[in-house]
């Protein structure tokens, strides 16, 4: 039965063949005014121990803003014997107007042993019809991915920040994209992490009178937290691809060099510092310094431009939270293809 107050339990255990019946029962037995809502099918896959419970908590929070049918899958390939368990539950939230509860269904699966290979059939048979399928893959992609799966996935969500071998993983993702019979949008949460910083940097150049700075760019410095070097490199990739810079000198001791279309050199400095995934970012043109830095309060960015004849007037803008729920919430709000991301990756592929 959908619960009035949110809990993070997997819910009621159910035989795989009875999932449909049990979901129906869930609504028949519910009390009070409840509405089942679903905009997407969101499948979450992880092979980490304890992932089912952790992801149930994430889904409970994500569904506060994105009603969906969630399929949470925890898998263990190592086990020799097949074991499949399933649970059904609902996450209910009171609407902004109050009163009515909006509920999203969650079906959880624990797959152990060789049956993990049946993942596509398990996912496909429990999709909410006519709704797109978003697959959030939380681990590295295995070499032997079932191509059947890609034919059904509309958006593939992953976080390249966790990848140990970017090139190999990206290669697998690109193969999946090629194999897919329909369009797959690649959604990298490491890219989502950069949304607000990119927005803050972009706004400096909205006015045509600022455009000449593009041709006068000399230095870019990016501070990043330990473990987030790939995030910083993606940011550089974005600048390089959008401003048509090309790599000129390989990555050495945190620095590299690009050249613009006029063969003008742009020095890039990446520095590891404790703090936000992306710390201070400074773009320096001949006369003006454009700076975006995390504000002391943590969830805002302080943005300012300053120059010889120009005093800095800092302004506050929202910062991107690094919480997985916030990253997913942000990612799910977006539509369309991520062409800019692919261009950014391509610009710095050799640095990642």
């Amino acid at each position, binding site marked *: 039965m959908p619960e009035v107050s949110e809990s993070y339990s997997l819910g009621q255990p159910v035989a795989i063949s009875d999932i449909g019946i049990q979901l129906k029962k869930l609504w028949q037995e519910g009390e009070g005014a409840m509405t089942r809502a679903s905009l997407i099918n969101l499948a979450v896959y992880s092979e980490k121990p304890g992932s089912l419970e952790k992801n149930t908590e994430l889904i409970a929070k994500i569904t506060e803003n994105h009603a969906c049918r969630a399929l949470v899958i925890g898998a263990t390939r190592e086990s020799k014997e097949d074991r499949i368990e399933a649970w059904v539950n609902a996450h209910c939230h009171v609407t*902004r107007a109050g009163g009515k509860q909006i509920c999203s269904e969650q079906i959880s699966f624990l797959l152990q042993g060789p049956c993990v290979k049946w993942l596509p059939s398990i996912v496909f048979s429990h999709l909410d019809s006519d709704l797109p399928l978003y697959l959030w893959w939380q681990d590295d992609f295995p070499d032997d991915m079932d191509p059947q799966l890609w034919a059904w996935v509309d958006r593939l969500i992953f976080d390249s920040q966790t990848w140990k071998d970017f090139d190999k993983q990206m290669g697998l993702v690109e193969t999946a994209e090629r194999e897919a019979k329909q369009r797959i949008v690649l959604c990298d949460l490491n890219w989502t992490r950069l*949304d607000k910083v990119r927005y803050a940097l972009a706004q400096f150049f*909205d006015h045509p009178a600022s455009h000449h700075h593009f041709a006068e760019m000399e230095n870019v410095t990016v501070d990043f937290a330990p473990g987030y070097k790939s995030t910083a490199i993606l940011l550089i990739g974005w600048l390089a691809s959008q401003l048509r810079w090309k790599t000129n000198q390989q990555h050495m001791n945190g620095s590299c060099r690009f050249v613009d279309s006029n063969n003008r050199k742009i020095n890039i400095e990446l520095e590891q510092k404790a703090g936000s995934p992306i710390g201070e970012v400074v773009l320096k043109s001949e006369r003006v310094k454009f700076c975006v830095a995390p504000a002391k309060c943590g969830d805002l960015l302080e943005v300012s431009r300053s120059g010889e004849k120009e005093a800095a007037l800092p302004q506050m803008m929202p910062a991107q939270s690094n919480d997985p729920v916030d990253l997913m919430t942000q990612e799910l709000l977006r539509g369309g293809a991520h062409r800019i991301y692919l261009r950014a990756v391509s610009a710095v592929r050799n640095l990642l």
Partner: protein
Amino acid sequence: MNRAAEHSQTNPLREGLSTRAVPQPCSIVIFGATGDLTHRKLLPALYNLAADGELPPAVTVIGFARRPKNDEGFRKEMEQSVKEFSRQAVRDEIWNNFAQSLFYHQSDFADESGFKTLAQRLEKIDQEHGTRGNRLFYFAVGPDQFEPILKHLKAAGLNKAPEGSWARVIVEKPFGTDLDSARELNRVISNSFSEEQTYRIDHFLGKETAQNILVLRFANAIFEPLWNTRYIDHVQITAAETLGVEGRGGYYETAGALRDMVQNHLLQLLCLVAMEAPSDLRADSIRDEKVKVVRCLRRMTVDGVATDVVRAQYAEGAINGKPVPAYRREERVDPNSTVDTFVALRLNIDNWRWWDVPIYMRVGKRLPKSATEISVHFKKAPMVLFSKETNDANVLVIRIQPDEGISLRMQAKIPGTSFRIEPVKMDFHYGTTFGKASPEAYERLLLDAMSGDATLFARRDEVEQAWAFIDPIEKAWSAKKDAPELYFYPAGSWGPEQADELLARDGRAWRRL
């Protein structure tokens, strides 16, 4: 609406980040900065935009009003208002920053020197805050103040922007009280600002559901083939509110429901429902199609007003179980007032698409509930197979406020061995489907004005055509001889019974809200 692409070409870093036109740095000068609109709507909207990171950093706000005050006093006053009326909680870090871009300029609207000093101040702000000579003048004052303000803006050279910059003016309704006064007002505005510089705000168009009408109609293939006289029986548009005049009796006495709501908000909604598909999403392409609808509205004759329009005024009654006074006993209202607080109309659009499809509109104060919606009533299916008694028509309802969404009523078989049919409702609620809260209408409209996107603002010809339709009704009502009767309805009811008869004589009834 589709200027994002244009901007992304000029700023390559914008590509993929915004699907809307990018607002430009500017100084926003609010005339009537101590008024209700500034306190309740404008400053909270600007703060919310800043908090959401939608406002360019180089935006300043200059409050222009008569009362003596300094920048600091204005900031403190605005902080209180924003704390009270903002849709999101005020954060000190954001407010302290935002407040630094708020300024107060004390002057009388009739004092030319006050505008000269305003011009000097704006230049200084441009230099210090990077607002780049862009100016947005917001007229949060009554139309009687427009002329002196516009005259002095022009004299101070503020109606023209330096090369590469812009000057725009936003005016609030009422855009006149009849066709003549609207033309005069437009003439006064056009003496100082061109039509391209003029943004006439109608906050109904800033509402998410109003904008969604275009998406519903033109992004879904299933509706457009049915959207015509062949399949639609009639359309109803209702704007009901439980509130009375709420201390605005003085203004309402000069307006009434027809001028206050029908001439602008309801006709704008009708245009969105009835217009043809625009050739593209440019502001003028959409407004060209909207104005054609108003042009096609069949003008009312004196007899037509008597038969197709019902005007009424609320008498004492009760709202939510609490007694409320009659309109004539409200503050600053003439005890013998004949002003309409309720209007119901039957309209016809004389074009191929809408031929013989009546449009029923009703608007009123002190009605049982607050709701604005459009309902499209389709023709009944030929009931050769089922009982005629159960033959309800399909109805598509677009709820503008509150509980924004869309529902479709259809027939379904009741489970069982017999063939019993009942209407069921397919319902889409914005609040249920999308967790994200919609921005306030003023937020969207202010951003659009800063971006130079006039799509959601009324154009001169739209306003004048709307008055050309309304004027004969007002004239018939104010005739000394044989003026149609003013009816009364108890507060808390759905208007006078004559409003029900307006539909009943066509064999129809108002949709139950």
